């Protein structure tokens, strides 16, 4: 098996450990080979919920779903003395184009996620956790259901877990295929049986989430890190990575690389570590040209930025992008950026929920403009119009979808404008990234 993990020093992998690579989808394997549920036991027997939250704050763990919000801080927004039920929701609706790292965790280490859910539920005082999984993950869902059954039979879920007095039920819920339902408030509406429309914030889910009750929504990878943070301490986790970006991250690399797949890197490594050392470098006779660092919603980086930047929140922010959901899409000099823009914009036109004006109308308009550029029927001013439309979407929508649809297009046009200008006179291509 080829290498799947790289760190800056000698530290071992956290998520893609050798035992996990072999598959830990039975309770027996998870307990025997991965110290399964020892983190939960420690938390329930030795720590108060507040201490768990503090430990996670100390770890510096930030959300792995896209926004990168500090997990412990998110938990601390849950009101302490509420008489409402508190809900924990695991976002397993991994739908961002280019992203398939949560799927790896669901396939290979589902009990680790269950243990993470229980630790988080204990920390925020939730007796009811939901896992919102995308419907396309049918095999993963089947496996997860079997794991939930094992966990329940072993007393890890249900009433009075491990004699601690803490009770928690976990329910698996399958989505129906809409990208927008990965947005946490649309997810909550969908979970409630409503149309998957994002909610206006405030109120934030921590105060009024699922069924109007305090709710934390965490990503699969975020929760999967918790058992080891519980066992080894926040300080241990924070010894990985950089000051602002602790730990490791999973990246699903696709596109023009020799070995597309899921890889784990310690935060702070160079992009070359991920793209060349792990993913094997360019797959064709072309050098890399551009990279969507964390899914198609994250503004694209050009080759120079990729060579200069490092994989961490700070570096991404400095380059005007995000690590998003870790869906790294690699393009090389053989790829046409107008094709790319058309492909990406069509995805957002198809998936915009249509609730708010700028996104509903703007995504459709952007596709029309890019298509006319692609077909060679546009004029020079249409390129500026495209940027202006993107500018009127960004920041003016209910949820982050609008920014995710507009920013990558704007960045692609700004960084590769000459390719768009060349199309004004010479149409080509079929709009698909081959």
């Amino acid at each position, binding site marked *: 098996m080829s290498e799947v993990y790289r760190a800056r020093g000698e530290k071992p992998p956290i998520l893609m450990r050798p035992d996990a690579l072999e598959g830990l989808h039975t309770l027996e394997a998870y307990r025997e080979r991965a110290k399964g549920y020892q983190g939960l036991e420690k938390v329930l027997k030795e720590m108060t919920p507040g201490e768990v939250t503090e430990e996670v704050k100390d770890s510096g763990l930030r959300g792995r779903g896209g926004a990168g919000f500090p997990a412990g801080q998110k938990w601390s927004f849950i009101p302490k003395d509420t008489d409402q039920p508190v809900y924990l929701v695991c976002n397993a609706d991994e739908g961002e184009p280019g992203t398939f790292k949560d799927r790896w965790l669901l396939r290979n280490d589902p009990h680790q996620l269950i243990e993470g859910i229980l630790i988080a539920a204990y920390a925020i005082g939730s007796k009811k956790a939901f896992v919102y999984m995308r419907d396309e993950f049918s095999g993963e869902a089947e496996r997860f259901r079997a794991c939930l059954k094992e966990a329940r039979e072993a007393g890890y879920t249900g009433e009075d877990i491990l004699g601690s007095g803490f009770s928690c039920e976990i329910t698996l819920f399958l989505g129906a295929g*809409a990208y927008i339902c990965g947005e946490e408030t649309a997810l909550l509406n969908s979970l409630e049986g409503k*149309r998957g429309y994002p909610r*206006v914030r*405030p109120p934030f889910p921590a105060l009024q989430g699922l069924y109007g009750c305090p709710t934390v929504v965490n990503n699969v990878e975020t929760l999967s890190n918790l058992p080891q943070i519980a066992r080894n301490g926040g300080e241990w986790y924070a010894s990985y990575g950089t000051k602002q970006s602790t730990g490791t991250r999973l990246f699903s690399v696709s596109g023009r690389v020799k070995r597309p797949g899921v890889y784990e890197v310690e935060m702070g490594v160079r992009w070359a570590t991920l793209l060349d050392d792990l993913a094997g470098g360019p797959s064709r006779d072309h050098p890399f040209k551009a990279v969507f660092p964390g899914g198609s919603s994250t503004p694209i980086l050009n080759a120079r930025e990729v060579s200069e930047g490092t994989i961490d929140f700070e570096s991404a922010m400095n380059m005007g992008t995000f690590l998003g959901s870790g869906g790294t899409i690699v393009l090389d000099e053989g790829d046409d950026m107008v094709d790319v823009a058309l492909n990406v914009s069509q995805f957002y*036109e*198809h*998936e*915009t*929920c*249509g*609730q*708010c*004006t*700028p996104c*509903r*109308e*703007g*995504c*459709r*308009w952007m596709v*029309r403009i890019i298509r006319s550029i692609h077909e060679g029927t546009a004029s020079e001013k249409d390129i500026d*119009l495209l940027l202006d439309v993107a*500018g*009127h*979407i960004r*920041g*003016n*929508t*209910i949820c982050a979808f609008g920014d995710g649809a507009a920013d990558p297009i704007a960045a692609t046009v700004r960084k590769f404008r000459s390719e768009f200008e060349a199309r004004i006179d010479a149409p080509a291509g079929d709009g698909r990234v081959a």
Partner: protein
Amino acid sequence: MIRGPKKTLKSHMGEGEHPVVRLPEEQEQVTLTIDGREVTVPRGTKLLTAALHAGIHIPYFCYHPGLSPEGNCRMCLVEIEGSRKLEPSCTMPVREGMTVHTDTEEVADARRGVMEFLLLNHPLDCPWCDKAGECMLQDHSYDYGPGTARHEVVKRTYPTKQFSDKLKMYMNRCIHCTRCVRFLKEVEGKEEFSLYQRGAYVDVGTYIEHNLSNNYQGCLADVCPVGALVTRPFLYRARVFDLEAQASVCSMCSAGCSVYVDRKRNRVARLRPRPNLQVNDWWMCDTGRFEFDWIATDRLDEPAREAEGGAEGRMVAIGWEEALPTAAAALKSAGEAGTLGGIVSARASCEETWLFRRLMEGLGGRIAPWYGEEGRIDPAEKTDFLHRRDPNPNTLGMETALEGWEELEELVGAIETGEVTTLFILDAALTDELAARLSGAEVIVVLSSHRTPATTAATLVLPGAVWLEKEGTLVNGDGHLQRFLKALDIETSAQPEAAVLSSLLERTGAGRTYRDAGEVFSELASRVADFEDLTYADIPPNGYRLSFGIESAGGRPEDPGHGVHPGTGTGR
């Protein structure tokens, strides 16, 4: 683009630029600053509501003061100090010390963007759209739009839908604000509308194609900020800017909804709700809105008396100069003989009832009320969130003005035994069966606007007016007193009932004449305690809640500060 003076919105939400809003009932007050002005509102108020309440205009489409805010149109984006990006003011709760700017270049740019996005797929068919002239998209485009188009995109289209004989939907005009969906969900309650499909192709309507069954379809056209939902009875009947509006009260049930009568050439073109937070909020039912054809049907247009020696039931037209002395003489002599009775309808106004009472009391006649075929129905009993079972607009007002009466059955019995020989009927339609039982009476004088079973039994018919042709007061099922004003001219020789009653009072010597409804009301209020010594001119635009003997906190009527006085607000 040519820019004229700022237009004022004309809508069911209130006249002018500012809709009637309802603030939360919360004691704690919050003070914030909007465009340099300090605004104080109860905690929990949303920013846009606070601004509108203070008279600061922020444009919006999806916000409606009677519906939950959804923040989807993005037209009301404002700058809040400390916020990284623009925020929708309709969903943003106010905070103490919040500093808000609605007039920055960034805000103006966002509004231009929203306008451009909304017009991208809008058919711009204003010349044949019913909403033109009262369309928010039109008005906001004028005030905030870019003025020019930068797009040559094929517009998305939908089929046009008929939802019933009352409502039609031009979905191409829809801006996806979801006000209609929210109205049916949150106010009407049947949830007959929903959203289907996704993104730019979202569709609005019923899941399976079928007629709407709710009685508030007119409100769907009201809440629609564009011409997507329009009422079919009004479709292509008039341009809204050719209509004259008169503030009035609906008379179709005991709810007494505040309405505007939009008239064209002395005809009712349409009725629409006038916001009144004490009565009907921003709504009215379809029964009140659409059923006004009866006003012009089966009307009595001149006085008539029974033909002498002719076939029974045959009437001959006479002039008022003959009718009034004849009626006065008959009533007077019956009064002297102690054989006079009178029936008054709960459709009559307080003033008419009072004059009727003065006449009957002055002549020594007996009085019985008429409530309709089903008898008295509790005027407070609702059939849904607004409409009442009692079809009379003034059951409580009539009873309060009369103070005492006998049951109709008793009076009819007295006719059958011959105790009562002369009957005066004000506005009461009666039934065929009841009318037949009156055959023993020698004289039956009926003052009525329409041909009814009562007029077929009459020996003398005096043509009256419908409420839109006169003025007065009504008390709804909750004891809320409202004025209604004349909206239409009478085009026949019919007379307002109060004028006829006033004349009869003088001619019989039972009383005097009155200058106007105000003078009648003053007398009524000074003589009947439940009217709380009000004067006609003191009745606020949205009416006054009578306390019926209960010590009220304020005591005197107070203008709630919203809406338009029936006497001045024409909403033109």
